């Protein structure tokens, strides 16, 4: 066992991958000398040098486009997008190029690149540095999407992303970087594409990912004291999406709630709620509810920011009404 932060686990994953595979390299704004805007790549340039920790100009589309070309030419690039809010700058390279090259070219070649980025609220970073835009990615065929909630997953999902034959968007949560845990990195974790059941419970199934998994667990603890047992599922990857872990739990409990920090409308929670409703209809006692971000931009005011996304209290209160 060792004590690691989410941030350190990500850096460790990059270092281990670079030691094992010469073709892995990191490119992005401030990834080298500065060590990453959130410190994930701190110190790596000393071991791997400026060619493998390639500092780039502030050219997000160019960074992703260069990663596409390098991946097609046999490298395994890890491009860093400092904030997922900048994804609009890259959307042609990501959505029209990386995501479609294998298909358009009839399977001739894939684009084995990883786009590391981070999103979410928690730092009063304002409307252009706090969004949860995973739905943009999930809505694009051809992209894989990993979104770790735990320190162990920060390490293992990033290592797994670096073995994928297809482009992976890897979304970290800015509020989790300092989260520390005792982890044994040699201990087994679920495979790539498998959800993790973080808590068992027969009354309700809460399906979530990223930071909201922790909020859901906090809510579930509070609910347990009141006699409501909620299962908490951490999806870990949104593409592939592991519905097979969700289905039997929902069939047994008869109630499901989906929790996501992203805006409610047409979001990840909407997709999951639709799937659960379609596939588990005969077992449901109540409507599948979405507990998600408000359909508004994120404010810099801490009070407004906090109120814009689900809280443990909102999750618990919603669960009480469902299980009443």
């Amino acid at each position, binding site marked *: 066992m060792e004590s690691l932060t989410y941030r350190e686990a990500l850096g460790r994953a990059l270092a281990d991958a670079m030691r094992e595979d010469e073709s892995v*390299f990191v490119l992005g704004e401030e990834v080298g000398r500065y060590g990453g805007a959130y410190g994930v790549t701190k110190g790596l340039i000393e071991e791997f040098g400026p*060619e493998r920790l*390639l500092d*780039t*100009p502030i*050219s997000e*589309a*160019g960074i*992703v*486009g*260069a*990663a*596409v*070309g*390098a*991946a*097609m*030419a*046999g*490298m395994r*690039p890890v491009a860093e997008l400092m904030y997922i809010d900048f994804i609009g700058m890259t959307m*042609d*390279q990501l959505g*029209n*190029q990386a995501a479609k*090259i*294998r*298909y*358009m*070219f*009839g*399977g*001739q*070649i*894939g684009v084995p690149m990883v786009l590391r980025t981070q999103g979410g609220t928690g730092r009063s970073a304002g409307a252009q540095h706090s969004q949860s835009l995973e739905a943009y990615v999930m809505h694009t*065929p*051809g992209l*894989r999407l990993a979104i770790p909630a735990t320190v162990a997953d920060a390490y293992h999902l990033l290592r797994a992303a670096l073995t994928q*034959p*297809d482009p992976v968007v890897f979304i970290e949560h800015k509020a989790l970087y300092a989260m520390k845990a005792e982890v044994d990195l040699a201990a087994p974790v679920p495979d790539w594409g498998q959800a993790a059941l973080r808590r068992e419970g027969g009354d309700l199934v809460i399906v979530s990912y990223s930071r909201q998994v922790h909020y859901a667990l906090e809510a579930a603890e509070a609910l347990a004291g009141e006699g409501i047992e909620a299962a908490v599922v951490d999806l870990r990857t949104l593409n*592939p999406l592991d519905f097979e872990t969700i289905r039997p739990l929902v069939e047994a409990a008869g109630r499901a709630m989906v929790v996501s920090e992203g805006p409610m409308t047409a979001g990840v929670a909407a997709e999951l709620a639709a799937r659960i409703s*379609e*596939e588990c*209809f*005969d077992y449901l006692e109540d409507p599948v509810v979405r507990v998600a971000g408000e359909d508004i931009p994120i404010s810099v005011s801490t009070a407004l920011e906090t109120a814009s996304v689900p809280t443990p209290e909102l999750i618990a209160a919603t669960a009480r009404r469902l299980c009443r």
Partner: protein
Amino acid sequence: MTRDNNGLGDLFREMLRIRIFEERVGELFVRGESAGSMLHLSIGEESAAVGVCSAMKDGDTFTTHHRGHGIFLARGANPDRMMAEIAGKETGYCGGKGGSMHIADMGLGHLGANAIVGGGIPAVVGAALAAKRQGTGAISVAFFGDGAMQQGILYEAMNMAALWDLPAVFVCINNQWGMGTRIDQATKSTDLHVRAKAFGLKAETVDGLDVREVQGAATRILDAARVGRPGFLAVDCYRFYGHARKDKSPYRDETEEAEGRKRDPVAFARAALTESGKAEAELADMEAAIAAEMDASIDYAIGSDEPPLEAMFRDVFAPGEPEPEPVAARLDRVLARE
């Protein structure tokens, strides 16, 4: 593949192959056998494709814009498989999924044609980065039109290529027209290579009338790129026909078109060959042989099968990964209630 492109005769043959291929693409459309009408012909631009490609080598990679048939042919593409792809057939380069605007072949270093203006440009930065890292000695060339000169991604890519001394080349085929907008209606700054110079690239503009001039300029630029000095080449030419197959260019006046079409690199090379003593009969034989080759490509395309429907869910992800569930299968499963 390596070709003997040193002599004008060879350069002419390659240009003529492109000219006739493109005419046959037009014919494929008229016969209703093309997959759609989004076919962008490069007639009038043959010297750019042939001149630049004659300075490329085996192992070099490239991307093209949507008007890229000629470039791919000049890099050694098989016209049968190209025409089949344009017809959306299983025997095409991409199994009928890509088409005219997304044709690619890794074997020939073609990292892909692109239907997004400027979309294929930054990939050559990554490919050049990889070539430099891997020490292959290869260069990577982005081909695009004058429309892409107004796209920000070009400047991001040129800046990175210059910053990192990459073996990358940016080739602007300036046919004067971006769809229905003439270059001087799109920018005040029509001296295009000056922009690349500002980024530290070795840059030239060359008149596309004489393919030998294009070859000379391309050789200078590409040779420099091979030793780590990235470059830019603008080739001035004229788009003889409309933007796409259905466009009759009502926005261009007849005088301009007539003047533009006088700048015909194929006719110019032919005249130069005749002047240097090439027998008319020999040129006619060459033309007939190429016409037969391109006619055969139409027959091949028409005779090929459409891709099977099972191919639809293939290649979204790598082989061995589960394919996306078809909507019909999903509905059957969801609605099959006890």
